[in-house]
């Protein structure tokens, strides 16, 4: 999921011009789980804007809970058909969702003016209803086969691939003593699995071209093509 946190309200309203009519759009998937853009927060944002003298043209959170704002065809239908009059009356859209959601609203409204209402902070695991933790950096070149599924690109502050720096203290990272050392987590896990041998092999430098931006993915029921500066890679899911 894409973890998001609302921007401070003063920062949001700073960018709204006098007389500008704003339509608020939330997301019923990730932002709902983050309490940053579900139905309750979206309605609340409309009220918070009105309380500060901003005219709200309308608000919506497309689809049932679990539906993502970034599903373009659905969001387009909800905005342009279900909320046609309010959207027509709006000068801009305030999006309570991730950066992908912001762009989805641009596409759905054929280039409407947008304001991001959230900071997109990371892609994470919903560990509990109140806790989201980052385990993947979305680098495009997954190397966790040799680390028991724990990603050193994400769990190590220096993104070291061949083992820890010498700075851990009582199992904690020298950069953030609140956090465990990612490499000690990897070591303890592999020890428990009886697979410390996996640590012996040299891990070559990352292919950063796969981490280039922007990237795209063409998908079908039988194969997918990943496009980055490193080129196109097509993989079949059939054999």
């Amino acid at each position, binding site marked *: 999921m894409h973890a998001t946190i609302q921007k401070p309200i003063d920062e949001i309203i700073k960018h709204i011009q006098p007389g500008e009519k704003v339509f608020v759009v939330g997301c019923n998937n990730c932002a709902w789980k983050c309490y940053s853009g579900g139905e309750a927060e979206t309605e609340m944002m409309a009220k918070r804007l009105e309380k500060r003298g901003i005219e709200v043209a309308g608000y919506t959170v497309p689809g049932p809970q679990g539906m993502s704002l970034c599903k373009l065809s659905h969001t387009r239908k909800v905005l342009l058909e279900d909320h046609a009059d309010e959207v027509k009356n709006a000068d801009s859209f305030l999006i309570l969702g991730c950066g992908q959601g912001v762009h989805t609203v641009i596409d759905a409204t054929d280039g409407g003016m947008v304001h991001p209402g959230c900071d997109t902070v990371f892609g994470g695991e919903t560990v509990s209803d109140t806790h989201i933790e980052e385990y993947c950096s979305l680098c495009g070149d997954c190397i966790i086969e040799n680390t028991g599924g724990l990603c050193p690109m994400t769990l190590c502050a220096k993104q070291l691939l061949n*083992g820890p720096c010498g*700075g851990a203290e009582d199992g904690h990272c020298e950069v953030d003593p609140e956090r465990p050392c990612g490499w000690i987590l990897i070591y303890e896990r592999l020890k428990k699995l009886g697979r410390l041998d996996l640590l012996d092999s040299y891990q070559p430098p990352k292919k950063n071209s796969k981490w280039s931006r922007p990237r795209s993915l063409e998908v079908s029921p039988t194969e997918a093509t990943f496009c980055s500066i490193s080129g196109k890679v097509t993989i079949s899911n059939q054999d």
Partner: protein
Amino acid sequence: MKLTTLFEKGEFVVTGEVGPIKGAIHRDKSIEPSCAIEALQLHQHVHAVNVTDNQSAVMRLGSLAASVRLKTNGIEPVYQLTCRDRNRLALQSDLLTAYSLGIDNVLLLTGDHIQLGDHKEAKPVFDLDSVQLIDMAKGLKRGYDISGSRIENYLDMAFGAVVNPNSDPLDLQIMKMKKKIDAGAQFFQTQAVYDVTVFEKFIKKVEKFNCPIQVGIVILKSPQMARFMNKNVSGVHVPEDLIEEIGSVAKEDRKKKSAEIAGRFVKEVKSICQGVHIMPLGWTDIVPDILEYAGIKHK
């Protein structure tokens, strides 16, 4: 001269360390930067002097410029190069530049994280880790860059690396040390160690690698400094009895006591390692006393 030559001869290799100034070297060549003055003080007593690379992620004069200044003054520098501020292009280019400017020894490190320094909003690079850096440097020695392209005039330098004997779990640290040796590391300088038992335990596990190791010494200046290191310098532990010992003498006698503590430690471990790396943190004048206490002949 390459430090590896000294190790091969069976010399007990003594190195010191200076940090480049926060500023530029004066255009008037008669004005030495303070790091060069410190190095000159060490000169008669050590085989070589490490020059740190934006140590603790604090922005300073480049390690290479300071290393070249030492070399010009007749002092053998150990040029430190970290992965924190450079991608693989810059690292290779700097290695070739260093060799071109006469550098014979390079210490290849990951580098302290940006968050520990004075430019906290900078982008940490870490394109490579230290093992990959050593492997890449070995390629330049063999005539290839990391992309596999041939280079002309290969570099020929001694490659040093670091290891922390205080690390827990130690086996994980040693796993990485082994990778560094396989990648091409030719000697090691350790993180500061204060406990003889810790160092002996470490050496027992790594002597099979047959790779020269210089024990790391950070001199203790005061109980406050020792406590500060215990609290703020990860991977270093000063035992309480040493903190009491340095605090047991009046301030004016601290340098003498400090030299005694460091010298005593080196004396106890010198038979199980191949050298010592002394980080005097400005107290360069006590280095001769440390070596005297340790029973190590001056260079």
